[in-house]
Protein backbone atom coordinates (compact mmCIF):
# COMPACT_ATOMS: atom_id res chain seq x y z
CA UNK A 1 0.00 0.00 0.00
CA UNK A 2 2.96 2.27 0.63
CA UNK A 3 3.84 2.25 -3.07
CA UNK A 4 0.28 3.18 -4.00
CA UNK A 5 0.22 6.11 -1.56
CA UNK A 6 3.50 7.40 -2.93
CA UNK A 7 2.46 7.22 -6.55
CA UNK A 8 -0.79 9.11 -5.82
CA UNK A 9 0.30 11.66 -3.21
CA UNK A 10 4.10 11.96 -3.28
CA UNK A 11 5.59 11.30 -6.71
CA UNK A 12 4.61 13.66 -9.55
CA UNK A 13 1.82 12.29 -11.72
CA UNK A 14 2.52 11.33 -15.33
CA UNK A 15 1.45 14.09 -17.73
CA UNK A 16 -1.48 12.14 -19.12
CA UNK A 17 -3.16 11.76 -15.72
CA UNK A 18 -3.03 15.53 -15.16
CA UNK A 19 -4.17 16.25 -18.72
CA UNK A 20 -7.05 13.78 -18.38
CA UNK A 21 -8.42 15.34 -15.17
CA UNK A 22 -7.99 18.94 -16.36
CA UNK A 23 -9.61 18.02 -19.68
CA UNK A 24 -12.62 16.44 -17.94
CA UNK A 25 -13.09 19.67 -15.95
CA UNK A 26 -14.09 21.48 -19.18
CA UNK A 27 -17.33 19.51 -19.85
CA UNK A 28 -17.83 18.93 -16.10
CA UNK A 29 -18.02 22.69 -15.43
CA UNK A 30 -20.61 23.03 -18.22
CA UNK A 31 -22.57 20.03 -16.97
CA UNK A 32 -22.66 21.22 -13.37
CA UNK A 33 -22.84 25.02 -13.72
CA UNK A 34 -22.98 25.90 -17.46
CA UNK A 35 -19.69 27.75 -17.00
CA UNK A 36 -16.49 27.98 -19.03
CA UNK A 37 -13.27 26.91 -17.31
CA UNK A 38 -11.29 30.05 -16.54
CA UNK A 39 -9.25 31.67 -13.81
CA UNK A 40 -8.02 35.14 -14.73
CA UNK A 41 -11.37 36.99 -14.47
CA UNK A 42 -11.31 35.77 -10.86
CA UNK A 43 -8.67 38.40 -10.08
CA UNK A 44 -11.35 40.98 -10.93
CA UNK A 45 -13.50 39.23 -8.30
CA UNK A 46 -10.65 39.65 -5.82
CA UNK A 47 -10.65 43.40 -6.54
CA UNK A 48 -14.46 43.41 -6.19
CA UNK A 49 -13.99 41.78 -2.78
CA UNK A 50 -11.39 44.37 -1.73
CA UNK A 51 -13.23 47.38 -3.19
CA UNK A 52 -16.93 46.45 -3.34
CA UNK A 53 -18.08 50.03 -3.94
CA UNK A 54 -15.70 50.83 -6.81
CA UNK A 55 -17.57 52.64 -9.59
CA UNK A 56 -15.20 51.51 -12.35
CA UNK A 57 -17.26 50.33 -15.33
CA UNK A 58 -15.44 47.03 -15.77
CA UNK A 59 -15.88 46.10 -12.09
CA UNK A 60 -19.62 46.65 -12.56
CA UNK A 61 -19.89 44.67 -15.80
CA UNK A 62 -21.85 41.44 -16.22
CA UNK A 63 -19.04 39.23 -14.83
CA UNK A 64 -19.40 40.88 -11.42
CA UNK A 65 -23.13 41.54 -11.16
CA UNK A 66 -23.38 39.05 -8.26
CA UNK A 67 -20.48 40.77 -6.48
CA UNK A 68 -17.28 38.75 -6.09
CA UNK A 69 -19.41 35.64 -6.76
CA UNK A 70 -18.52 32.04 -7.55
CA UNK A 71 -15.06 32.84 -8.92
CA UNK A 72 -13.78 33.48 -5.39
CA UNK A 73 -14.87 29.94 -4.44
CA UNK A 74 -13.19 28.47 -7.52
CA UNK A 75 -9.91 30.34 -6.91
CA UNK A 76 -10.06 29.55 -3.19
CA UNK A 77 -10.61 25.89 -4.03
CA UNK A 78 -7.50 25.90 -6.22
CA UNK A 79 -5.38 27.17 -3.31
CA UNK A 80 -6.98 24.60 -1.00
CA UNK A 81 -6.42 21.73 -3.45
CA UNK A 82 -2.71 22.52 -3.78
CA UNK A 83 -2.47 22.91 0.00
CA UNK A 84 -3.93 19.41 0.45
CA UNK A 85 -1.54 18.08 -2.21
CA UNK A 86 1.49 19.55 -0.43
CA UNK A 87 0.36 18.34 3.01
CA UNK A 88 -0.32 14.75 1.85
CA UNK A 89 2.95 14.80 -0.07
CA UNK A 90 4.89 15.74 3.05
CA UNK A 91 6.18 19.05 1.64
CA UNK A 92 7.33 21.94 3.83
CA UNK A 93 4.55 24.27 5.04
CA UNK A 94 6.35 27.38 3.78
CA UNK A 95 9.24 27.69 1.36
CA UNK A 96 11.00 30.56 -0.41
CA UNK A 97 12.18 28.30 -3.23
CA UNK A 98 11.23 28.91 -6.86
CA UNK A 99 13.17 26.17 -8.61
CA UNK A 100 16.22 27.04 -10.69
CA UNK A 101 15.49 30.77 -10.25
CA UNK A 102 16.10 30.90 -6.50
CA UNK A 103 18.80 28.22 -6.79
CA UNK A 104 20.77 30.46 -9.18
CA UNK A 105 19.95 34.03 -8.17
CA UNK A 106 20.94 35.12 -4.68
CA UNK A 107 18.44 37.96 -4.26
CA UNK A 108 16.60 38.58 -1.00
CA UNK A 109 13.09 37.04 -0.84
CA UNK A 110 11.61 40.56 -1.07
CA UNK A 111 13.58 41.43 -4.22
CA UNK A 112 12.62 38.07 -5.74
CA UNK A 113 8.95 38.61 -4.89
CA UNK A 114 9.08 42.10 -6.46
CA UNK A 115 10.57 40.64 -9.65
CA UNK A 116 7.79 38.04 -9.76
CA UNK A 117 5.25 40.81 -9.10
CA UNK A 118 6.35 42.48 -12.33
CA UNK A 119 5.64 39.17 -14.09
CA UNK A 120 2.27 39.01 -12.34
CA UNK A 121 1.41 42.52 -13.54
CA UNK A 122 1.95 41.47 -17.18
CA UNK A 123 -0.04 38.26 -16.57
CA UNK A 124 -3.01 40.20 -15.19
CA UNK A 125 -3.03 43.00 -17.75
CA UNK A 126 -2.32 40.73 -20.73
CA UNK A 127 -4.89 38.10 -19.79
CA UNK A 128 -7.61 40.75 -19.54
CA UNK A 129 -6.72 42.36 -22.87
CA UNK A 130 -6.58 38.91 -24.52
CA UNK A 131 -9.84 37.88 -22.83
CA UNK A 132 -8.46 34.90 -20.92
CA UNK A 133 -5.41 33.01 -19.71
CA UNK A 134 -4.00 29.51 -20.11
CA UNK A 135 -7.16 27.94 -18.66
CA UNK A 136 -9.75 30.06 -20.46
CA UNK A 137 -8.03 30.33 -23.83
CA UNK A 138 -5.45 27.56 -24.17
CA UNK A 139 -7.47 24.76 -22.53
CA UNK A 140 -11.15 25.75 -22.71
CA UNK A 141 -10.94 27.85 -25.88
CA UNK A 142 -8.83 25.44 -27.89
CA UNK A 143 -10.95 22.47 -26.74
CA UNK A 144 -13.94 24.35 -28.17
CA UNK A 145 -12.06 25.26 -31.37
CA UNK A 146 -12.29 29.04 -30.87
CA UNK A 147 -10.20 31.15 -33.22
CA UNK A 148 -9.50 33.93 -30.67
CA UNK A 149 -7.97 31.27 -28.40
CA UNK A 150 -5.63 30.13 -31.17
CA UNK A 151 -4.45 33.74 -31.59
CA UNK A 152 -4.10 34.34 -27.84
CA UNK A 153 -2.24 31.03 -27.30
CA UNK A 154 0.23 31.83 -30.10
CA UNK A 155 0.88 35.12 -28.28
CA UNK A 156 1.30 33.39 -24.88
CA UNK A 157 3.78 30.84 -26.24
CA UNK A 158 5.76 33.20 -28.47
CA UNK A 159 6.26 35.84 -25.77
CA UNK A 160 6.75 33.20 -23.06
CA UNK A 161 9.52 31.51 -25.05
CA UNK A 162 11.25 34.82 -25.88
CA UNK A 163 10.99 36.14 -22.30
CA UNK A 164 12.27 32.89 -20.81
CA UNK A 165 15.25 33.13 -23.19
CA UNK A 166 15.99 36.64 -21.86
CA UNK A 167 15.62 35.46 -18.25
CA UNK A 168 17.95 32.52 -18.94
CA UNK A 169 20.64 34.67 -20.54
CA UNK A 170 20.48 37.88 -18.50
CA UNK A 171 19.33 36.75 -15.04
CA UNK A 172 20.24 33.09 -14.73
CA UNK A 173 23.55 33.64 -16.53
CA UNK A 174 22.82 31.30 -19.40
CA UNK A 175 22.57 28.34 -17.02
CA UNK A 176 20.07 25.54 -17.11
Amino acid sequence: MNGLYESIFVNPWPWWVGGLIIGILVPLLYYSENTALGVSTGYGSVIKLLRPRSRLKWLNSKSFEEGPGWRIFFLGGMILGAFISARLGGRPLLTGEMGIFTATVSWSPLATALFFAVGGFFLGLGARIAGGCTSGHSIHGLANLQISSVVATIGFLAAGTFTTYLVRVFILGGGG
Partner: protein
Amino acid sequence: MGRNTTFLILGTVFGFTLSRVGASEYDLIYGMFTGTDLTLAWVMITAIIIGHFGMRLLNLAGGKTRRGEKVSVKAKPLKSITIVGGLIMGVGWGLSGACPGTVLAQLGEGKFIALGTIAGLVLGTYTYALLVERGSDSPG
Protein backbone atom coordinates in the same frame (compact mmCIF):
# COMPACT_ATOMS: atom_id res chain seq x y z
CA MET B 1 -25.38 20.91 -4.15
CA GLY B 2 -25.20 24.70 -4.29
CA ARG B 3 -23.38 26.68 -6.91
CA ASN B 4 -20.58 27.98 -4.66
CA THR B 5 -19.98 24.53 -3.14
CA THR B 6 -19.67 23.03 -6.62
CA PHE B 7 -17.11 25.65 -7.64
CA LEU B 8 -15.18 25.14 -4.40
CA ILE B 9 -14.98 21.36 -5.01
CA LEU B 10 -14.08 21.61 -8.71
CA GLY B 11 -11.53 24.32 -7.89
CA THR B 12 -10.01 22.01 -5.28
CA VAL B 13 -9.76 19.21 -7.84
CA PHE B 14 -8.13 21.63 -10.31
CA GLY B 15 -5.61 22.96 -7.77
CA PHE B 16 -4.78 19.48 -6.48
CA THR B 17 -4.20 18.24 -10.04
CA LEU B 18 -2.03 21.23 -11.03
CA SER B 19 0.08 20.60 -7.95
CA ARG B 20 0.36 16.81 -8.44
CA VAL B 21 1.33 17.07 -12.10
CA GLY B 22 3.97 19.72 -11.33
CA ALA B 23 2.38 22.71 -13.09
CA SER B 24 3.24 24.73 -9.97
CA GLU B 25 6.97 24.01 -10.43
CA TYR B 26 8.99 26.93 -11.79
CA ASP B 27 11.40 24.46 -13.41
CA LEU B 28 8.69 22.75 -15.47
CA ILE B 29 7.43 26.06 -16.95
CA TYR B 30 11.05 27.04 -17.56
CA GLY B 31 11.70 23.65 -19.15
CA MET B 32 8.68 24.00 -21.43
CA PHE B 33 9.85 27.38 -22.72
CA THR B 34 13.47 26.29 -23.14
CA GLY B 35 12.40 23.01 -24.73
CA THR B 36 14.26 20.91 -22.18
CA ASP B 37 11.18 19.42 -20.44
CA LEU B 38 7.89 19.24 -22.31
CA THR B 39 5.85 17.64 -19.48
CA LEU B 40 3.50 20.62 -19.18
CA ALA B 41 3.07 20.95 -22.94
CA TRP B 42 1.87 17.33 -22.97
CA VAL B 43 -0.45 18.03 -20.01
CA MET B 44 -2.03 20.91 -21.96
CA ILE B 45 -2.30 18.97 -25.23
CA THR B 46 -3.96 16.04 -23.42
CA ALA B 47 -6.34 18.41 -21.60
CA ILE B 48 -7.35 20.12 -24.87
CA ILE B 49 -8.06 16.79 -26.60
CA ILE B 50 -9.95 15.32 -23.64
CA GLY B 51 -11.82 18.62 -23.19
CA HIS B 52 -12.78 18.63 -26.87
CA PHE B 53 -14.14 15.08 -26.91
CA GLY B 54 -15.72 15.57 -23.50
CA MET B 55 -17.70 18.50 -24.91
CA ARG B 56 -18.75 16.38 -27.90
CA LEU B 57 -19.89 13.66 -25.54
CA LEU B 58 -21.85 16.19 -23.46
CA ASN B 59 -23.57 17.42 -26.64
CA LEU B 60 -24.30 13.86 -27.80
CA ALA B 61 -25.90 13.20 -24.41
CA GLY B 62 -28.36 16.03 -25.10
CA GLY B 63 -26.26 19.10 -24.29
CA LYS B 64 -28.04 19.69 -20.98
CA THR B 65 -26.68 20.70 -17.58
CA ARG B 66 -27.51 18.76 -14.42
CA ARG B 67 -30.38 21.22 -13.89
CA GLY B 68 -31.71 20.61 -17.40
CA GLU B 69 -30.61 23.95 -18.92
CA LYS B 70 -29.17 24.00 -22.41
CA VAL B 71 -25.37 24.09 -22.36
CA SER B 72 -24.23 27.38 -23.91
CA VAL B 73 -20.62 27.89 -24.97
CA LYS B 74 -19.97 31.55 -25.69
CA ALA B 75 -17.11 32.22 -28.10
CA LYS B 76 -14.56 34.70 -26.79
CA PRO B 77 -14.50 37.59 -29.29
CA LEU B 78 -11.49 37.89 -31.60
CA LYS B 79 -10.30 41.50 -31.58
CA SER B 80 -7.28 43.02 -33.23
CA ILE B 81 -5.89 43.56 -29.73
CA THR B 82 -6.19 39.87 -28.74
CA ILE B 83 -2.66 39.11 -29.99
CA VAL B 84 -1.29 42.12 -28.07
CA GLY B 85 -2.89 40.84 -24.86
CA GLY B 86 -1.56 37.36 -25.61
CA LEU B 87 1.97 38.68 -26.02
CA ILE B 88 1.80 40.76 -22.82
CA MET B 89 0.47 37.75 -20.89
CA GLY B 90 3.28 35.62 -22.35
CA VAL B 91 5.90 38.06 -21.04
CA GLY B 92 4.38 37.64 -17.59
CA TRP B 93 4.38 33.84 -17.99
CA GLY B 94 8.09 33.87 -18.83
CA LEU B 95 9.01 36.28 -16.04
CA SER B 96 7.07 34.62 -13.23
CA GLY B 97 7.17 30.99 -14.34
CA ALA B 98 3.48 30.79 -13.60
CA CYS B 99 0.13 31.56 -15.15
CA PRO B 100 -2.92 32.99 -13.35
CA GLY B 101 -4.04 29.46 -12.39
CA THR B 102 -0.80 27.74 -11.44
CA VAL B 103 0.29 30.62 -9.18
CA LEU B 104 -2.67 29.76 -6.91
CA ALA B 105 -1.35 26.20 -6.70
CA GLN B 106 2.10 27.60 -5.82
CA LEU B 107 0.55 29.62 -2.98
CA GLY B 108 -1.37 26.60 -1.69
CA GLU B 109 1.85 24.60 -1.63
CA GLY B 110 3.42 27.25 0.59
CA LYS B 111 5.69 28.88 -2.00
CA PHE B 112 5.42 32.38 -0.58
CA ILE B 113 7.17 34.12 -3.50
CA ALA B 114 3.84 33.45 -5.28
CA LEU B 115 2.34 36.24 -3.15
CA GLY B 116 4.41 38.68 -5.25
CA THR B 117 3.06 37.23 -8.50
CA ILE B 118 -0.51 37.36 -7.15
CA ALA B 119 -0.12 40.99 -6.00
CA GLY B 120 1.12 41.83 -9.51
CA LEU B 121 -1.83 39.98 -11.06
CA VAL B 122 -4.34 41.96 -8.99
CA LEU B 123 -2.57 45.21 -9.90
CA GLY B 124 -2.43 44.30 -13.61
CA THR B 125 -6.14 43.44 -13.59
CA TYR B 126 -6.92 46.72 -11.83
CA THR B 127 -4.87 48.59 -14.43
CA TYR B 128 -7.04 46.97 -17.11
CA ALA B 129 -10.16 48.26 -15.32
CA LEU B 130 -8.63 51.77 -15.34
CA LEU B 131 -7.78 51.46 -19.06
CA VAL B 132 -11.37 50.41 -19.84
CA GLU B 133 -12.56 53.50 -17.95
CA ARG B 134 -10.47 55.81 -20.13
CA GLY B 135 -10.68 54.04 -23.46
CA SER B 136 -13.44 52.95 -25.80
CA ASP B 137 -12.83 49.22 -25.26
CA SER B 138 -16.11 47.74 -24.13
CA PRO B 139 -15.98 46.11 -20.72
CA GLY B 140 -15.85 42.35 -21.10
